[in-house]
């Protein structure tokens, strides 16, 4: 994948989203098979089967505590860093189980990037340093760092705001700008999948809109999986939606999944209908 593919992402047609919301179902980038997850003795997810088609946006929705964040952390092997973490089933990326013994978790985390709820740029590094930090931290070699910085910041919708002060500390940026910087940082290592765990929950509406534009544009290149509590956001940005629910005393599972228009417009399950209409959660 060449880095030039990120060019020209700024012009975005919000009206066009409705039509583009249903991509043709392409080849599968990632999928989980019968995935169950534990923290110690507590089972938090059970029997999750979801597939994520290439270059689409999938929203994971559901009330707090239903295991969405845990689920997303199993997709790039961050879950295993928590003491007592365990899992059954498989997470397939390009057809291979990423939990196979011979898979290097570092390689997986480079191919499957992640953006967190709270913007977390490295405060002691400059803006430029943050964008390139993934290369430095992982020891990945890429040429033309200036181009990488410009392309990824452009793709994250931040270039015009920071191009004259790339040497400033990242801590000087606003929360929304920091979150876009973090997206640029994740893109610099050229991931195929981008996981986003409530990326806008700490941001103001204007910043949220910018991030959503960015997500729409990025989905032309990368597969995006986003956890969100914001129903409108799920409708605005995603092609597919999976609804997670943890009923009292039982682990979280997927109640319903499918095209976002179906989940929100014509859900098959009463619980989904209630949730997307804000009757609980």
């Amino acid at each position: 994948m060449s880095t030039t593919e990120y060019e020209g992402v700024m012009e975005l047609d919000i009206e066009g989203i409705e039509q583009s919301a249903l991509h043709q179902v392409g080849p599968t980038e990632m999928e989980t098979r019968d995935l169950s997850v534990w923290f110690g003795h507590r089972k938090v997810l059970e029997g999750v089967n979801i597939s994520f088609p290439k270059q689409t946006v999938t929203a994971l929705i559901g009330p707090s505590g239903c295991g969405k964040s845990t689920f997303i952390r199993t997709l790039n092997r961050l879950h295993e860093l928590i003491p007592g973490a365990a899992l059954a089933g498989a997470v397939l990326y390009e057809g291979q189980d990423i939990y196979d013994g011979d898979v290097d978790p570092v390689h997986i985390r480079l191919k499957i990037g992640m953006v967190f709820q709270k913007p977390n740029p490295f405060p002691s590094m400059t803006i430029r340093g943050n964008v390139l930090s993934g290369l430095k931290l992982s020891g990945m070699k890429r040429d033309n760092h200036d181009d990488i910085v410009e392309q990824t910041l452009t793709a994250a919708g931040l270039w015009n705001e920071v191009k004259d002060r790339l040497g400033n500390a990242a801590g000087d940026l606003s929360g929304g700008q920091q979150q876009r910087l973090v997206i640029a940082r994740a893109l610099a290592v050229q991931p195929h999948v981008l996981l986003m765990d409530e990326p806008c929950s700490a941001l103001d509406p204007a910043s949220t809109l910018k991030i959503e534009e960015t997500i729409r544009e990025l989905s032309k290149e990368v597969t995006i999986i986003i956890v969100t509590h914001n129903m409108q956001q799920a409708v605005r940005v995603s092609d597919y939606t999976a609804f997670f629910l943890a009923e009292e005393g039982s682990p979280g599972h997927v109640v319903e999944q499918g095209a976002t228009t179906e989940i929100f417009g014509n859900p098959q399950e009463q619980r989904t209908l209630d949730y997307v209409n804000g009757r609980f959660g």
Partner: protein
Amino acid sequence: MADVSQVERRDLQSAATSHRGDRVFTRTVTGAAFTSLAVLAGIAIFLGIQSIPAFQTQGLSFLTTTGWDINTDPPTVGIFGMLYGSVLLAFIGLVIAVPAAVLLAVFMVFISPPRLSRVLTNLIDLMAAIPSVILGLWAFYILNPTAEQWQVLLNKYLGWIPIFENTSGNFLGTPFIAGFVLAIMMIPIITAVTREVLSRTPPDLINASEALGCSLWTMLRYVALPYGRGGIVGGIMLGLGRALGETIAVFFVLKIVFETNWDKIIESGGGSVATLIVSRFGEVSGPLELQLLLAAGFFLFIMTLIVNVVANLIVSRTGRLQK
């Protein structure tokens, strides 16, 4: 309306502490704070006044030469070698203690199971509680003869490096052994501070580096250690402050000689200001020698003061950068 509101500017500071209990408490705390300042100033003034005669009789050579001949008139004494020795011993201690302490802290925070790390924390605190005289005795009877063998090996295989030269064949009472004892005293301090600082690395940043495919090593190198640098340097300086002033443990193991041992760290003989004072104090020949010793103490005091000020500068500067 207009006749109720007061137009003049009112100072609200006094209003903020108008509660009587608060006033008493504030004054007590302020008084206590100034007491410690007064004690510090008192010590400095006392030492400063006492060291005037040393300068009158010795001039600047008190600081630039090395020797302790009290029988000439005026006595020819100079503490350069001792001041230098204090620094050298502390430096040797740091070279040994810093890597050990930082690695230990990294292990406790990022690698060891929580239960083990709690046990280690208690053990290390216990290590800090060993009185230095006990440590000195142990070093004299156990460490000295053991370390003699290490130094023989160092000399045999690395003797071509000037600092590991030994021409006398005497490997006892060397700066290396004294520095090693100081390292044992510094390790608990530096470890405790470093562990505290590293355990405060924001989880957000650890998450970020893990998600970027970071190994533990690169996470430490680029995230945790830079983040904690200010605190770690502060811990090192605390340890250094202790090492510079440490007297009795060094006195047990170091062969005190009144000449400057520049760099022969495994050659017998060396000195430090604190051991100079303790070695001469018992058999002091008269008021002038006592004042000379107090003058030496004055400069030790100034040296540790400088170390602390520099430490504070470093800590506050790195703190600013992080913000």
